[in-house]
């Protein structure tokens, strides 16, 4: 019972951050800011759910294999997400996408103007 409560607290933390990221994706004004918001889902959103799942699988189900598979899923998401978002942001910028509102500073546009 106590274990269940601890797991649920971790799930709730993950879901709160996933909700924040989703709201950011829907409400942010431009492409790059939307991309910033999704990082919330891929970091603490995933970590909360993964930690809860690992605790439940290891202590509640007594299944080390399941716990390790869940941990590996979390690790792979954490390792691959920054590469994906870096390439998406760079591709969007090179493809000519700019925010409607002028950015505070744009050193990339200044140095690589074509």
């Amino acid at each position: 019972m106590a274990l269940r409560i601890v797991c649920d607290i971790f799930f709730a933390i993950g879901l709160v951050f996933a909700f924040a990221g989703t709201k950011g994706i829907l409400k942010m004004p431009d492409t790059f800011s939307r991309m910033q918001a999704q990082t919330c889902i891929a970091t603490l959103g995933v970590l909360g759910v993964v930690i809860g799942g690992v605790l439940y699988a290891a202590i509640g189900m007594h299944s080390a294999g399941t716990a390790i598979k869940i941990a590996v899923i979390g690790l792979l998401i954490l390792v691959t997400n920054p590469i994906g978002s870096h390439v998406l942001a760079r591709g969007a910028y090179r493809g000519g996408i700019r925010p409607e509102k002028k950015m505070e500073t744009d050193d990339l546009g200044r140095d690589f103007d074509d």
Partner: protein
Amino acid sequence: MQKTKLPAVLATFVVCYAFWILLTWTFTVQELAAGAIVSLAIALFSARFFVHEKAGWLANPVRFLACLGYWIGTFMKELISANLNMARICFGGCRDINPGIVKIPTDMQSDYGIAAVANSITLTPGTITMETTEEDGQNYLYVHWIDVKETDPEKAGEAIKGSLERGVRRFWK
């Protein structure tokens, strides 16, 4: 094209085999032998794409512990504070943002060091690395920052990656 070197093959083999054991988690002789053969074949073909510098760099226990301590300690602290900040912006209606792209200098020299710092920056909500360049031996990162507080490169760099870079410098140049 780089040549395949023995330490690189060994390092790739160890990582592949560790993943095989973690994913199967059965310790019969058959499973372990099949995993070793498959990992060795993959390592022979792909080691030259994965390992470009010294393969045994992280096998030193001091560096390995510094690496673990960085990901579990320093990075997690930054990650949680940035996440709370981002969640506050999102629940507050996404209005008080001030996005921009800043160019910051980095002290890292090796490919792995730059990759570790750049990926740490990207994984922290609120900052995304968009490009890296080298000018006169000094490496620069172009970072999209959702709330630009500093436009001076040095101060912006300290605000974005100060503690992250000090952590990475303990195990990679």
